[in-house]
């Protein structure tokens, strides 16, 4: 089971999918594309926190992989 968390004004919105159910994978892929098109940055999170003293590293990704467990979407950045 995979989960996308999309950061937003009212907290993160979650999208979940089961990699063995094609319809859910397709819906998740569509959601992934939608947020990427809006300029969000996607990070894949792996491993358990206990394994690393400084927490888990988010690895930036550009493509959706249904086998990913956790993907976090961060809003686009701009200089200020």
């Amino acid at each position, binding site marked *: 089971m995979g989960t996308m968390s999309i950061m937003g004004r009212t907290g993160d919105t979650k999208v979940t999918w089961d990699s063995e159910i094609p319809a859910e994978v397709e819906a998740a892929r569509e959601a992934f594309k939608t947020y990427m098109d809006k300029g969000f940055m996607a990070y894949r999170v792996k491993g358990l926190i206990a394994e690393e003293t*400084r927490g888990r590293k988010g690895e930036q990704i550009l493509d959706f992989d249904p086998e990913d467990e956790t993907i976090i979407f*961060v809003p686009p950045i701009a*200089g*200020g």
Partner: protein
Amino acid sequence: MPNWYGYGNLGHGATTTASSNWVYATDSTAASATYTWWPNTYYSTQTLPCPQRSAEELQRDYEEIASREAERRQAQAEQERERAEAVRQAEELLRSCLGEERLAEYKTKGCLSVDSPSKPGRRYVVDAHSRIKVYEADKLVEELCVHLVDPLSLANDSRWLPEPDVVLGKVWLIENDEERLLRVAMRVANHNRR
């Protein structure tokens, strides 16, 4: 030419003050009362005529004003509850990604320290709303101004997002794409360093 009654920030027949945000007025010459809000600048220098009104009319108007004020306060309280829940969720996300130790560090100090992935000895200090501070050999060398942009409003400010989300977003940006951060950010050199 209508006669205008003023309430709220406006005293009867008084001149509005520059510090008032809004003027509440009714048109006494209309067949039915109309209620409109104007920004204070519209009437800021005018003295408004104010005919006598009956006690019932005043009471009715005051009750309407009180009702609107109660609705405004209720909406504000609801917004504050939503914000608190959003911050709670964002803290949980920060904890699940970076761990209990770093969440505690953030809650204690209000910021997180991130080592540069490319340059030994360089360290970034990240909080939600200030510029990212860049230290080299423990000396502040420059500050970087970046925002996480709301795709709906495109406002160039991160305040729309819960603070822990902003911090997590900046931490991962440094760890994954430091070069992009340095390219996009408005950079302010620290000229006082020695």
